[in-house]
């Protein structure tokens, strides 16, 4: 296992500014989702990824457009990082016909297949074998694609994690297992329910898979680590485990105030905000503060427009409840 710090990077200033803007869009979309939830416009539940932006944006920057990603119920950032628009995501959350899944999936199931974002899964760990399957498919077709599964620290204790990593290693599949370790499974510190300190990285040797433990709040670090792993995967080197340490800014879901987290821990991690870190790097690279401000403004405008458009969008046609079960578009189950 390699521990990667703030090493020097091959990512240029322009590219980094783009990544920053993408993160700013995600941050604002998550904030909007939070507000819309509190305003009663989002039903059910939401699991916001504010704080996790660097993982999604960094990984996406390192992938090909035709690569596949699989995310969890905390997956807004991955959908947007891969190219889903804030509008179609917020419309989904607000149960609009224009939602990215026609309001049938909801917050926990954002999917944008045309962008290789093959779904958000709400059963913890279930998608790890799916990502391995997409990687197997890529290998069978000789397409050179890789698949990435993003998952939480808590997901490392469920059986599907184990089965996916073993078979991925045995079959040398081009798949990346990227753990977003935000220190908590819901309200429980991950350390209190896990036998090892680094729940993903410390387990990789059990599958003879190389692992990297990285700073998940530094988009450059993430981009580089994922690039390395994707490169290895594409050249037949098999899977990699990447454990990215990060932190969520909101509670686990809905209105969870997250009082179970020590104040100093929260404060320390807020100081390590991925947007701040990227801003620091941009400044170091000599990018003018105005350029960053402009990116922030574009992001703010995009999200504000998305909120307005999503609000204005119509509810789904009730008949939509009975479409899309079968490939023929319908739901007939008997004669």
């Amino acid at each position, binding site marked *: 296992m390699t521990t990667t710090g703030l090493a020097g990077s091959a990512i240029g200033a322009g590219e980094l500014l783009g990544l920053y803007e993408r993160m700013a869009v995600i941050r604002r979309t998550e904030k909007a989702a939070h507000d819309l939830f509190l305003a009663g416009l989002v039903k059910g539940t939401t699991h916001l990824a504010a704080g996790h932006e660097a993982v999604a944006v960094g990984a996406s920057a390192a992938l090909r457009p035709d690569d596949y990603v699989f995310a969890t119920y905390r997956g807004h950032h991955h959908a947007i990082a891969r190219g889903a628009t804030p509008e179609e995501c917020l419309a989904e959350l607000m149960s609009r016909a224009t939602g990215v899944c026609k309001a049938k999936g909801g*917050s926990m199931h954002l999917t944008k297949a045309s962008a290789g974002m093959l779904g958000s899964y709400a059963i*913890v760990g279930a998608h790890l074998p799916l990502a391995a399957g997409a990687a197997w498919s890529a290998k069978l077709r000789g397409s050179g694609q890789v698949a990435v599964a993003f998952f939480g620290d808590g997901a490392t204790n469920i059986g599907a994690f184990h089965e996916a990593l073993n078979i991925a290693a045995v079959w040398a599949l081009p798949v990346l297992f990227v753990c977003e370790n935000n220190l908590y499974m819901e*309200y429980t510190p991950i350390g209190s*329910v896990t036998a090892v300190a680094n729940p993903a990285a410390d387990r990789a040797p059990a599958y003879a898979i190389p692992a990297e433990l990285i700073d998940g709040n530094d988009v450059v670090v993430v981009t580089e680590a994922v690039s390395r792993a994707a490169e290895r995967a594409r050249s037949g080197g098999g899977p990699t485990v990447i454990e990215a340490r990060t932190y969520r800014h909101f509670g686990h879901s809905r209105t969870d105030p997250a009082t179970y987290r020590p104040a100093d821990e929260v404060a320390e991690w807020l100081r390590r905000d991925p947007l701040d870190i990227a801003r620091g790097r941009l400044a170091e690279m000599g990018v003018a503060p105005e350029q960053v401000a402009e990116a922030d403004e574009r992001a703010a405008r995009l999200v504000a427009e998305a909120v307005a458009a999503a609000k204005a969008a119509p509810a789904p046609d009730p008949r939509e*409840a009975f479409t899309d079960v079968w490939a023929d578009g319908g739901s007939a189950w008997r004669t």
Partner: protein
Amino acid sequence: MADMSGGAAGAGGAPGGTAAGSAAHAAPAAGAEQAAPAAPAITYREAVSEALARELRRDPAVVCLGEDIGRAGGVFKTTAGLFDEFGPSRIWDTPISEQAILGLAMGAAMTGMRPVAEIMFSDFFAVCWDYLANEIPKMRYMTGGQVTVPLVVRTANGGGLGFGAQHSQAVENWALAIPGLKVVAPSTPADVIGLMASAVRSDDPVVFFEHKGLFASKGPGAPPGHVVPLGQASVARAGTDVTVVGLAATVPMALAAADRLAAEGVSAEVVDLRCLIPLDMASVLESVRKTSRLLIVEENPYQGGWGGTVASIVADEGFELLDAPIRRVAAACVPLPFADALEDEVIPTVEKVLTAARALLAY
């Protein structure tokens, strides 16, 4: 899911029906198991933690395990207060390892404990189904009676809250398909307490479905020592023209429909099954003997739903009692959609119950 404690009072579009229904419901036919009229009202959610606390106090062999059930009090707050009262040696927080949760419960039950395991959402039965389908229910039989497995698996079940296809299913029918499990799904706070007492004290494994849509609903509490035997349906409302059989959240729905039917001059009898195993078909058949018409309201999809088993028994043993077809109001045969407007199209509602009841009466 954090703070899911704010779930809607009446699931599946039964707003307003719950209160009226509960009043009738609190006076079940079998007087023995009736909650004392003076018991102060509590929520269904509070009833769960109260029920567990009573059993934890009564029997030191009772021990709880599950995800976030300890300090956090459960994502639905159904174990609130237990950790404070009973401490970490009785209330165990687990990793996200549902197979381990049920496997540990089973191993402990085989060796002298009475574990109560929580599977947070009943949809997650799918990741530990082996324990519910192949291990727990078959152990006693396979060993020729050498080993009993006295445990309870509690779970939050059902839809109507916009949680999407993987967090909203009503899966009592999955459990019904497995001989060797007792299957309980209460509709009122008092029944939660009385049935939990029976479940924990049972030497057989019990799957206990707590309906998410009912957590915020209120009803009379239960006097000390309240025990409702497993396998006894309750007549939640007496009537003569049509029998409406419900379970869990479809009981308040049926009661709300019965109210509206009463305004139309129709007397509907609502039977709350309370358990699927043991299945109190005697009560259902007795009711049909009176009404000659049977409507079954179930939240699971029609295909493979528990109503099929009830209907087939009546179509066999009660064939001569029937003056009309047997009808089932069940969920449509699709996954559950997220948007509430779509979800309402799919799961049973008071309107759908009414429509079906009227059609039966017009037959």
